[in-house]
């Protein structure tokens, strides 16, 4: 379904909901055309093709709201009725509001016309490349699972408040889970992925080489050492341990729910002055780049934490109204879900030293590539096993370690950041550096 037809479908849904008794209404639709190939046990497993159009309708009766979705266009009328019926049984909430319309500017590079010609055979070819590149890198590494997905996606949103927006995007996502096996020795698995919006920029080799490197390094892992001290987190571990907690706290909905420690929000000092975090929904080529959010509000770059101090929270229409602040266009979700709050492309600004220089500067510590464990975003407590970890001794990377756990509190370690690298890596939609933390508990 073309974008303009999709927008028309949304407008019809809004009109139908109003004719059924809704005072206000909003419809969000998404049409997906995708092909994918899956690898299991180092061989192609299945090739898939999918087409689906789904639409979700929010009906407002006064300040009561109900939501219903369907993937059957002939089920739209029933969905509108269901949304209105659900609104009628729900209690009033003064913050159930729709955003006002605003000009949405289209974003260059969101859609690659070459994606329209991308076939199931093309997806199979790139999936096969994942295996071939792994074998070229090291034959001890096995691709346990991998997927190559190519998606063309149309999105449209319309509301009785006057919002009307649509866009088309293409996205190529590829990921692999790899382990190394050498005789009786089996490594931990490693997960890597890549993403691009352009056919010409598909690069499966980079994540494959990184997965091989990490899997092989853990093959020779030995028991680690227990200490309390410095830990250097690689970007994937930064994402695992710190980013989730920070985002939970910056989510205005969590603040309204009384779950965020940063309820007082803007102006609060929460991290070392070297830590600056930006959200950019219009980042050129970004995985999470789009012209507008789930409610049709245009995206724009936004600083969240500047030099350790909170400068903005993530807001959608509900939270902005409830907290009396500006909507930051972070309504998230799809046709089958009510709008939530989520970031778009996240960037931690780089420091001055490279990660290699940071290692050189460490007398003793641990480099952690990946973290597998608990992170409680409310208390900030984290505890779990480190993966593909190496000891740092006398400014040099030492042996790989296994069976080692780290524990601490994210709020405390954010204040104890002692270094941020100049080099960064893309972890899905997050551009993250290496971060050195102090006073972390390490148990072997």
């Amino acid at each position: 379904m073309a974008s303009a037809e999709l927008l028309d479908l949304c407008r019809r849904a809004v009109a139908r909901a109003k004719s059924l008794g809704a005072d206000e209404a909003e419809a969000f639709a998404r049409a997906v055309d995708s092909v994918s190939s899956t690898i299991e046990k180092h061989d192609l497993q299945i090739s898939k093709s999918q087409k689906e159009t789904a639409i979700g309708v929010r009906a407002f009766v006064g300040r009561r709201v109900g939501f219903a979705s369907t993937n059957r266009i002939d089920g739209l009328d029933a969905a509108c009725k269901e949304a209105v019926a659900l609104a009628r049984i729900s209690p009033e909430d003064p913050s159930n509001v729709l955003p006002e319309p605003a000009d949405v500017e289209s974003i260059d590079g969101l859609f690659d016309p070459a994606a329209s010609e991308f076939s199931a055979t093309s997806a199979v070819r790139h999936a096969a490349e994942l295996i071939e590149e792994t074998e070229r890198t090291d034959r001890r590494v096995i691709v346990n699972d991998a997927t190559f997905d190519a998606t063309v996606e149309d999105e449209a949103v319309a509301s009785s408040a006057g919002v009307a927006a649509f866009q088309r995007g293409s996205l190529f996502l590829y990921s692999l889970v790899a382990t190394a096996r050498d005789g009786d020795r089996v490594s931990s698995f490693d997960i890597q992925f890549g993403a691009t919006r352009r056919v010409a920029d598909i690069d499966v080799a980079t994540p494959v080489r990184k997965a091989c490197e990490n899997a092989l390094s853990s093959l020779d892992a030995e028991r680690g050492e227990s200490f309390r001290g410095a830990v250097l987190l690689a970007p994937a571990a930064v994402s695992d341990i710190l980013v989730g907690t920070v985002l939970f706290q910056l989510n205005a909905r969590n603040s309204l729910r009384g779950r965020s420690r940063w309820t007082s929000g803007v102006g609060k000092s929460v991290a070392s002055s070297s830590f600056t975090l930006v959200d950019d929904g219009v980042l050129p080529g970004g995985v999470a780049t789009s012209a507008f959010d789930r409610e049709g509000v245009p995206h724009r770059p936004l600083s969240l934490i500047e030099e350790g101090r909170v400068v903005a929270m993530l807001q959608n229409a509900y939270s902005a109204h409830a907290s009396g602040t500006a909507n930051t266009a972070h309504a998230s979700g799809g046709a089958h879900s009510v709008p939530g709050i989520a970031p778009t492309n996240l960037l931690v600004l780089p420091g001055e030293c490279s990660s290699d220089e940071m290692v050189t500067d460490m007398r003793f510590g641990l480099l952690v590539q990946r973290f597998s464990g608990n992170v409680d975003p409310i208390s900030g407590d984290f505890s779990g096993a480190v993966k593909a970890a190496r000891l740092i001794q006398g400014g040099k990377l030492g042996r790989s370690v296994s069976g080692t756990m780290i524990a601490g509190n994210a709020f405390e370690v954010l204040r104890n950041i002692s270094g941020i690298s100049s080099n960064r890596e893309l972890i899905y939609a997050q551009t993250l550096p290496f971060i050195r933390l102090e006073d972390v508990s390490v148990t072997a």
Partner: protein
Amino acid sequence: MQTLLEGIAARGGGWIELRYQARRAKQLVVRNGQVEESSSAELVGVGVRAFADGAFGFASTTDLTRAGIERSVEIARSTAAAAAAAKRTRIERLADVDLARGEVPLPTSDPLDAHSLEEKLGLVTRIDDLVRSSSALVVSSEVSYAEMIDEKVIVTSDGASVVVHDSKPAIRILAIAGRDGKRTRALESLGVTGGWADLLSVKSPEDAAVAAVRLAVDLLDAPPAPGGPFQVILDPELVGVLAHEAIGHTVEADFVLGGAVTADKLDKRVASDLVTLCDNGTSVYAPHAVGELAVDDEGVPNRRTAIIENGFLRAYLHNRETAAHFGVVPRGNARAYTYRDEPVIRMTNTYVEPGETPLQEMLGTMKDGYFLKGFGPSGQADSNAEFMFGVREAWRVRNGKRTELVRGATISGNAFDTLMSVDAVGDEFEWEHGAGFCGNKGQLAKVDGGGPYLRCTVNVGGEQEGGRGQR
């Protein structure tokens, strides 16, 4: 729909599997006394899997006309051909098995549709009120209800033709306590296969709400868990999580073929002889397990699989492809989450069978260890059976007595080493009855885990006090 699919499957042209699925889902969420979500979703379509030249192709459609489904059959066949061209090891055949025919009825005498949304919202609102009124230290509450009602028609060109009805409701109760800027949380879940009365029969939502508040409040004063190797008692929920996450995934036959640590362990000792661990789509020992499954999405009737019998690894979990490879009969473990998904090897209800030791006897003979209850907030297990799980409620045990509550405990180790260390298996049995899903191979699945209390040795993760390298 069954007649239409049977007609399309009978047209020849090679093996195909046609799966119609109509899912109706509802979700009600109340947070801090406010209804944050009242929503319903409908997901209807047909998934077609074709097998040609030793490879699978898959296509899905929402066009439920004969022409629309036949077009998807052609796309599935052409994608199978594309896959076959790149596949290194062709699949020789699918395992022969008696395929299901007939109808699997709704697993309840009290259907969810017989209860109004007002009644369900009333319960959720009442429980949310209870959470907030149970302690002045509760700073946030969240109670949600979710239901998933499925109707499937599964037809294969080699003989399956079955209509399957399913119904899985669940309630989640979250309490967050706070004091002096400190926040702690506790989550209780109730999930079943069945209807409204079945959901309310496994555990009282009111009791669950009070338990969540008590734990969240008590954790405010709990000291950090001391780390190190300890003898522990795992409760049935943690036993189920261990059975599912740390053992179950390593015996999924596709993982085995991909190099999982179990690849060369069949018929070898992997656990204490006290341990028998099974996967079973039928709720044994206690009713309404979340992972109930009568017929899988390949049309294969589900049967009990004894994965570990008296300490010896005896079986893997299969779909028809891997069963043919290993020369065994599939027992119904191929599952697809929606019509858009192809069936993949998944667990159902995974559990340790009960033994003979009363809990008090286990506890009474422990000198210094932990009594561990419940899973959360998260965890992970590896294909080499290494695991790390968060523990919801960790109690120190000293000289046979449960003493103080500690916070932030995790358990980790190698699952088979852990099972080898088992020296007592309890005489009670419970399902976890969780509200969540297992995510694997890009799909979700409703599963359950359970077992008796079990005593073993694991590495407890907690705080490390000083040591080398302190700076």
